[in-house]
């Protein structure tokens, strides 16, 4: 029975079709493993009753022959997607008891496609973080360990750390996350799994707890490229409820995996070759370039001159948008309330008690950069720099089809190695943030292990709405890399 959790999503889909096992059996296998590995703290809320009910309905549909694309496949849902009747917290104290009376568009689509919801996965509070340590429900633990220090627990990355761990530790076939500045790709890299942030506008943001609305985008995390393509198929599409949702035709992403990348031009941005980039990450990147060459693609040196300004511009834009979005937590309509003598005192006490330190910090910075006298110097300036970053990519994509970079400047770090300086934490996202600022599709895939035995990821970036090329190239690289390592925790 436990072998069922070793299957990839596509293999599980085949097994359900050929009736090798039932959706209920598959779901039960996952619920068992979830229980055994609760120490990882990947799930905030487990929904085993709902999962078993959905699985038995899936079994009926599979028998009748009217199964959906995700029929009977158990997945985790980041606790940022509103799920009707199931508590949705954003891992914040301020939403600790919130039970949405509606379903987010993306989770609703997956449900209708037959996916089985195992539970809600953990994240950094309001998706603000790169370590999944700021959740009000405690840190999430990476199933990987360093060879040199097996006892010391590592972070899974963030903010979608619970989703990445759920996939890496085989607690789910796949999980969905959101990515604002790297929150799918960086944890995917730290946990040795595949994650894709689609183009901004590809997935509806309706019903996702908002962080920075011009950047937030939903996407899947899974064990391989084919599996993310399958899940992505059931997440995308125009939604009139999200005014930035793209009215554009949706391809079948699984069909994009043609294995042919001959003649494709692969951009290698020189600005990502940082002075302090470790030798092992440089080598990983070079090996990736060599693999592409072997597969018939053509590496091309490119320049993205405004890269170094993406991080400061991002933190202005994202903090400004977060300070505005999070004003809705007022102790009146939903969430926590701390009483006060006046309405203002109630707001202030509620928000001081409801938000954690990092969220408070970003709200304050955001409020400052939007305040009278500073708006043009900070916010408008950052929006102008954002356009320069966007233009950098636009120019590059006149000559190349896809861009290859490392996903993160390091491997997973220790829970007890977190620097008190927030900027040091932000540096984790140095390679993922420019793509977010430009709204481009971008995928991270595991490309090797560090000397100390930890997974390292490479990132592929595509043209707007060209997830197909990104997935096609990733699939070819995945076959060449043949990453077979499994997390320390899962070894017998």
């Amino acid at each position: 029975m436990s072998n069922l959790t070793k299957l990839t999503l596509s293999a599980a889909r085949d097994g359900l079709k050929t009736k090798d096992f039932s959706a209920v059996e598959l779901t039960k296998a996952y619920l068992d493993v979830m229980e055994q590995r609760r120490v990882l703290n990947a799930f905030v809320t487990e929904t085993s009753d709902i999962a078993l009910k959905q699985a038995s309905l899936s079994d009926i549909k599979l028998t009748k022959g009217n199964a959906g694309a995700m029929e009977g496949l158990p997945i985790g849902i980041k606790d940022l997607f509103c799920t009707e009747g199931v508590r949705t917290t954003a891992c914040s104290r301020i939403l600790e008891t919130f039970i949405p009376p509606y379903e987010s568009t993306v989770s609703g689509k997956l449900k209708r496609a037959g996916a089985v919801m195992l539970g809600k996965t953990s994240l950094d509070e309001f998706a603000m973080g790169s370590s999944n340590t700021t959740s009000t429900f405690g840190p999430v633990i990476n199933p990987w360990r360093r060879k040199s220090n097996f006892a010391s627990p590592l972070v899974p990355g963030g903010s979608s750390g619970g989703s990445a761990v759920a996939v890496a530790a085989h607690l789910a076939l796949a999980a969905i996350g959101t990515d604002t500045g790297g929150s799918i790709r960086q944890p995917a890299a730290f946990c040795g799994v595949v994650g894709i942030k689609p183009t901004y506008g590809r997935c509806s943001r309706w019903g996702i707890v908002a962080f920075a609305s011009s950047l937030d985008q939903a996407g899947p995390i899974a064990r391989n490229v084919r599996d993310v393509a399958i899940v992505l198929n059931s997440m995308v599409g125009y939604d009139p409820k999200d005014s930035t949702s793209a009215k554009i035709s949706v391809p079948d992403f699984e069909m994009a995996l043609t294995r042919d990348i001959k003649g494709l031009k692969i951009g290698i941005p020189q600005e990502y070759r940082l002075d302090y980039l470790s030798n092992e990450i440089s080598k990983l990147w070079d090996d990736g370039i060599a693999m592409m060459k072997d597969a018939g693609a053509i590496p091309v040196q490119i320049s993205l001159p405004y890269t170094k300004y993406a991080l400061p511009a991002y933190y202005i834009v994202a903090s400004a948008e977060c300070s505005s979005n999070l004003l809705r937590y007022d102790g009146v309509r939903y969430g926590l309330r701390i009483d006060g003598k006046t309405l203002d005192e109630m707001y202030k006490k509620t928000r001081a008690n409801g938000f954690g330190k990092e969220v408070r910090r970003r709200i304050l910075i955001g409020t400052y950069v939007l305040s009278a006298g500073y708006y043009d110097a900070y916010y408008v300036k950052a929006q102008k720099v954002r356009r320069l970053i966007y233009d950098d990519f636009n120019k590059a994509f006149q000559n190349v089809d896809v861009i290859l970079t490392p996903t993160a400047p390091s491997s997973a770090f220790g829970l007890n190695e977190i620097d008190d300086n927030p900027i040091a934490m932000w540096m984790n996202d140095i390679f993922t943030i420019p793509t977010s600022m430009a709204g481009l599709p971008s995928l991270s895939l595991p490309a090797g292990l560090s000397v100390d035995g930890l997974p390292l990821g490479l990132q592929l970036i595509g043209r707007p709405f060209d997830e197909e090329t990104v997935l096609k190239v990733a699939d070819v690289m995945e076959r060449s890399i043949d990453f077979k390592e499994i997390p320390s925790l899962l070894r017998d």
Partner: protein
Amino acid sequence: MDESIFMSLDKDIVRNIANLARIEVLEDEIDSIVKELSNILQFVEQLSEVNTDDIIPMTVVADMKLPLRADVVTDGNCRDKVLINAPESFDGFFLVPKVVE
């Protein structure tokens, strides 16, 4: 760009932005917040090196016009659903502390 605007924060500015953000900040926290926020502002100050003359600010990356929809009611009649998560409600209304003397 006016460089003088990038001055460091002081306690009064922090009190003011905390008030604007409606977040209670205790007096003994203010010094450390001034330091934290000043570090961040110092970090983002590097943007002043970038020449952005004649650059149009980018508000949204999606290459699209704001969509228009028909002016018809598509939602509503769900008062109880709207109130279901309210910390305090009464007789179909949200309850708040008294605002008018």
